[in-house]
């Protein structure tokens, strides 16, 4: 892709290209990386904006309401209006707050949510950093997302945000354990930490040879882990029914109580970017990424997008369906149900792989 872009630039600029290239050649890798980051970030932020719109519409329909329909045709400009409103609002600082950390909180919330996209492959070769330790990178950077909430909760110097921070640190660590353990089975069957290889390894197998590729994806042999990963993903992004961190009926909005304007919008962006990220990760680890479900249709990015959209719809669906979990039962589900289940399934998969009945060769 890099060579194509360079050739294109050279043909457009013609004779001007040679002197220009001499100037930018030393910094070209930096420029090229920045260009690709913008290429990922811009559509992502647009998706975040329209995910909020879609969420309001879907929940509206499920509750037999209309949802936003005033701004623009069918209400399509609603997220733009929301964004503008938040952008022009004043960011208030509580007098007792720790100012520096109060600013750092939202930044720490959104930075990991965006940084994680570096290793997500969109289709073969379409990835910012195709690194061998991709899954480790996801787990490592994903685990620092909780700092945004903790710092915001503490820096606000107020009671409800502090409760939110305490709940967040307990909940997110608990569900990271079960998510990590669920991923171990994926690593075992695909014997790689590289996300591109994890996807391509799902395209092999008996069913894939028969043209029914969707039966050879990881979701079927690792079905309990798929369920654990998806539910833990909901808990990890603090979405309903596991949104005890915000819990508006108990602690108002948790760590976000004291935030306004753009600072609040950054928490909002981080939450939705994390939702899209979890759906991308679930599609890649369990639903075959960009692979086509049947043999006679070619693979491509549109399949990944379709799978992500389906999982995002699942996120919205359960938000409209289930009441909030009680806090102690949330911890029980994480530690007493998911962790033992994943530990047993790792053993089962290990024995399965070593037995003659193995389907992963």
């Amino acid at each position, binding site marked *: 892709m890099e060579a194509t872009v360079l050739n294109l630039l050279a043909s457009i600029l013609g004779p001007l290209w040679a002197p220009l290239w001499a100037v930018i050649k030393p910094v070209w890798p930096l420029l090229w990386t920045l260009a690709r980051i913008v290429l990922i970030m811009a559509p992502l932020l647009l998706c975040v904006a329209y995910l909020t719109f879609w969420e309001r519409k879907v929940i509206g329909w499920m509750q037999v309401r209309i949802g936003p329909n005033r701004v623009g045709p069918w209400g399509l400009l609603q997220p733009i209006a929301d964004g503008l409103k938040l952008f022009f609002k004043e960011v208030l600082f509580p007098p007792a707050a720790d100012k520096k*950390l109060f600013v750092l909180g939202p930044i720490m919330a959104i930075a990991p949510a965006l940084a994680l996209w570096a290793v997500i492959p969109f289709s073969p070769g379409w990835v910012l950093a195709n*690194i*061998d*330790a991709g899954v*480790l*990178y996801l*787990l*490592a*950077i*994903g*685990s*620092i997302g*909780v*700092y945004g909430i*903790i*710092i915001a909760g*503490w820096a606000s110097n107020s009671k409800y945000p*502090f409760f939110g*921070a*305490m709940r967040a*640190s*307990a909940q*997110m*660590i608990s569900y*990271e354990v079960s998510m990590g353990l669920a991923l171990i089975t994926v690593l075992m069957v695909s014997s790689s*930490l590289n996300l591109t290889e994890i996807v391509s390894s799902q395209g092999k197998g008996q069913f894939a040879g028969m043209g029914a590729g969707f039966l050879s994806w990881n979701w079927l042999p690792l079905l309990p882990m798929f369920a654990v990963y998806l539910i833990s993903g909901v808990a990890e992004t603090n979405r309903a029914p596991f949104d005890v961190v915000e819990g508006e009926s108990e602690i108002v909005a948790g760590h976000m109580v004291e935030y306004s304007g753009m600072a609040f919008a950054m928490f909002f962006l981080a939450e939705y970017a994390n939702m899209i990220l979890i759906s991308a990760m679930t599609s890649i680890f369990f639903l075959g990424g960009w692979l086509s479900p049947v043999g006679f249709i070619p693979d491509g990015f549109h399949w990944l997008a379709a799978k992500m959209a389906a999982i995002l719809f699942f996120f919205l669906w359960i938000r409209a369906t289930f009441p909030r979990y009680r806090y*102690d*039962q949330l911890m*029980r589900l994480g530690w007493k149900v998911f962790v033992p289940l994943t530990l047993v399934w790792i053993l089962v998969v290990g024995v399965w792989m070593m037995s003659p009945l193995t389907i992963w060769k």
Partner: protein
Amino acid sequence: MEFKTILFYIFSVVTVLAALRVITARNPVHAALFLVLAFFNVAGLWMLLQAEFLSLVLIMVYVGAVMVLFLFVVMMLDINIEQVRQGFWKNLPLGALVGGFMVAEMAMVLSGRYFGLANLPPQNLPANASNTKDLARVLYTDYAYPFEIASVILLVAIIAAVMLTLRRRKDNKAMHPADQIAVKSKDRMRLVKMAPEVELPAPAAKGEQA
């Protein structure tokens, strides 16, 4: 200057400054957050040393789990800063002794070649070398038994920690979700058939009731 060298200097300067702030910051929460920053930059240094597995695990374990719990505790504590700073001169000799030992040990590790440590890893690995795979191969073959013993020791420590804090309070009114789900209407309500205490008024009303 190579780009990697610039990165090295950025990481090391930030590490040293953050480590200094850990011991000089007045607020314990700020100190803990500076420790997080120091960990993060050390992970960057390890990445430059082509030890990507250790680097990412450092972030995952120390930054993602240990320091979160540490912050959790530090935020809950009501620490009186003046009281903490009182014993500085009294504790200095012991602290200096421990620090001195650590400096000496680090010097011995860093000057490994001088002390004849032959098995130092090669400096320039090929681009496709996987640190993760190399580590796994060594851990699960040559060092399988020490590795298993270490994990069993950790497991024992986990169980011991759980047992130390696990005590059943007598006034605990927590309910078990399994019991709640398994409950039947019979457990909650009893239907009793009773003989009528007053005579039925007339035989004509009997037909209406049935």
